[in-house]
C-alpha cells in the first residue's frame, strides 16, 4: 500500500501544482491587475482603480467592442445554421459513413489555423480563385473586393471554427433517443413541433457548448482580423494584444480579459442549466 500512496500523491500533486502555478495563480493575478493603476515605468502601480473597466465604456473602445461582439456573434450564428443540419445529416448516416464524414470534419480542425487563414486570404483576393471563377462564369465583370471587410472576417471565423460547432452538436444529436421521435410522430406531431418540443431542448447542451467553443475563441483570434479585416474590423483579441504588448496599459488589457472570463462563466452557467433541464425532462 505504501507504493500505491506515494504514486497517488505524486500524480495528483504534480498536476495540482502545475495547474495552481500556471492557471489559478496567473488568472487571479490578472483579476488583481485589472483593478490597479497603469504606470509607465513599472507597468502597474498597486493602487486600486476601476479605470480599466470604465475605459470599456469609453465610446472610442465601446464601438470597437460592440463591433467585435457582432463579428463573433454573426460567425457563431452562421456556424450554428450550417453546423446543425450538417451534424444532423452526419448522425443519420451509416456507422461507417459517420466515421468517414467525422474524419473529414476533424482534419481541418487538426491543421494549422494560421495557415488556413492565409489560404482563405489567397482565394479571396482580387485576383484569387473565387473572383476569377465568378468572372469566368459571367456573374461579375470586375473583381469584387472581398478582403479587408467584415464579411471576410466572418467567413474566415466560420471557416476556422466550424468543426468546433459540428463536433459537440453531432455528439448530442447522436445521443437523441430515436423512439422519442417516432413516438412524437405516431402521436401526430408535425416535424416543426417535434423539433421545437423534443429535438431542440434535448440538443440544447450541444448547441450551447458549440456556441461556447466558437464565440469565445472567435473574439480572441487577432490574426484573422489582422490578415483579413483591415483597420475597421478589429476583434477584442486585437485590442487586448495592443494594450498589453504595444501600449502597455496592463489594467485595461486585464479588464478586457476578465470581461471575456465573465462571458465564459455566463455561457457555462447556461450550459449547466440546459443540461439539468434536459436530464430533468428525460427523467420524467
Amino acid at each position, binding site marked *: *500500500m505504501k*507504493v500505491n500512496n506515494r*504514486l*497517488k500523491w*505524486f*500524480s*495528483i500533486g*504534480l*498536476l*495540482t501544482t*502545475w*495547474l495552481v*502555478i*500556471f*492557471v*489559478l*495563480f*496567473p*488568472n487571479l*493575478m*490578472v483579476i488583481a491587475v485589472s483593478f490597479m493603476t497603469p504606470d509607465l515605468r513599472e*507597468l502597474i502601480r498597486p493602487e486600486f482603480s476601476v479605470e480599466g473597466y470604465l475605459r470599456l465604456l469609453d465610446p472610442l473602445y465601446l464601438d470597437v467592442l460592440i463591433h467585435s461582439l457582432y463579428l463573433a456573434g454573426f460567425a457563431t450564428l452562421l456556424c450554428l445554421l450550417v453546423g446543425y*443540419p*450538417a451534424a444532423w*445529416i452526419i448522425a443519420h448516416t451509416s456507422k461507417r459513413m459517420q466515421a468517414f464524414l467525422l*474524419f*473529414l*470534419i*476533424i*482534419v*481541418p480542425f*487538426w*491543421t*494549422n489555423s*494560421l*495557415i*488556413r487563414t*492565409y*489560404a482563405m*486570404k*489567397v*482565394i479571396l483576393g482580387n*485576383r484569387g480563385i473565387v473572383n476569377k471563377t465568378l468572372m469566368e462564369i459571367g456573374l461579375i465583370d470586375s473583381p469584387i473586393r472581398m478582403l479587408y471587410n467584415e464579411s471576410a472576417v466572418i467567413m474566415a471565423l466560420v*471557416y476556422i471554427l*466550424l468543426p468546433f460547432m459540428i463536433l459537440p452538436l453531432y455528439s448530442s444529436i447522436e445521443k437523441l433517443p430515436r423512439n422519442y421521435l417516432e413516438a412524437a410522430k405516431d402521436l401526430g406531431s408535425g416535424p416543426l413541433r417535434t423539433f421545437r418540443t423534443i429535438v431542440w431542448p434535448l440538443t440544447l447542451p450541444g448547441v450551447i457548448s458549440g456556441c*461556447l467553443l466558437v464565440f*469565445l*475563441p472567435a473574439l*480572441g483570434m487577432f*490574426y484573422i482580423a*489582422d*490578415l483579413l479585416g483591415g483597420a475597421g474590423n478589429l476583434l477584442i*483579441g486585437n485590442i*487586448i494584444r495592443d494594450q498589453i504588448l504595444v501600449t502597455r496599459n496592463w489594467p485595461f*488589457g*486585464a479588464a478586457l*480579459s476578465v470581461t*471575456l472570463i465573465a462571458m*465564459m462563466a455566463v455561457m*457555462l452557467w447556461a450550459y449547466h442549466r440546459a443540461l439539468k433541464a434536459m436530464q430533468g425532462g428525460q427523467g420524467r
Partner: protein
Amino acid sequence: MIRPLKLGFMALLFFYLYLPIAVLVANAFNSTRSGNRWGGFTAKWFDAMWANSGLMEAAVNSLTVAVVAATVATLIGTLAAVALYRYRFRGKLALNGMLFVVMTSPDIVMAVSLLALFVSLGISLGFWSLLAAHITFCLPFVVVSVYSRLSGFDRSVIEAARDLGASEGRILRQIILPMAMPAVLAGWLLSFTLSLDDVIISSFVTGPSYEILPIKIFSMVKVGVTPAVNALATLMLLLSLVMVAISQFLLKQKHPS
C-alpha cells in the same frame, strides 16, 4: 427531393472546408509567383523554403518545443488521468474544474495570464516560458483523452488481478498502462499538433530570442504572398494529416480484453 438536397449541402460544406487548403497546396507547386494562375509544375518553392535560414531555424525551434511539450504534458497528464480514474480524494472536483476551465477558456485569456506570471517572476521570454505555456494548454487534452479511455474499461479486470494477489504497481504496469496506451499516444499526437498550431499564446510568451514557426509565418504572410510559406504549409498539412490519421486509428482500437 430531400436526398439530393442533403448531398448538395454536404458537398458544399466540404468544398468550403477544403478549397482554400487545395489552392494552397496547388500553389506550392505552381511556378507562377502570385499563384493567381497555373504556370506549370515546379519544386523551386521547396528549395526556397530550405534555403530560408530564418524559416528553418523557426521550424527547428517549433518542432523542439512541440516534442518536449507534448512529452511532458503526456507524462503528467497520463499519471493524473490514472490517479483520477483510480482514486477518490478531496479536491477532485476542483481539479476537474480547473482542467475544464483551461480547455474552454479562450487562448487570449490564457496568453495574458501567462505573460503576467512570467513578467512578475522576472522570467525572460524565450524557450522556457514558451515550453511552460505549451505544456499548460496541452495538459487537459491528454488527461481527458486518457481518462475517457480508462472509464470505458471494465473495472472487474482490476478486481480480479487484485484478488489474484497483484500489487498496485503491477496492476498499473501490466493492466492500466497497456489499456491506456492508444489514448496516451493519441494524447501525445494531439498535444504535438496543438503546440505547432498555436499562434495566440506563443506570440505573448516568446521573445525575439526564440522565434517559432507560427510567429514567423504570421510576420511573412502579413506582408504578402510568399511561395516558400506555401511549400512549408503543404509539408505541415501533410504532417497533420498523418498525425490525425494515426490518432483516429489509435482511438478506434478496441480494448484488448
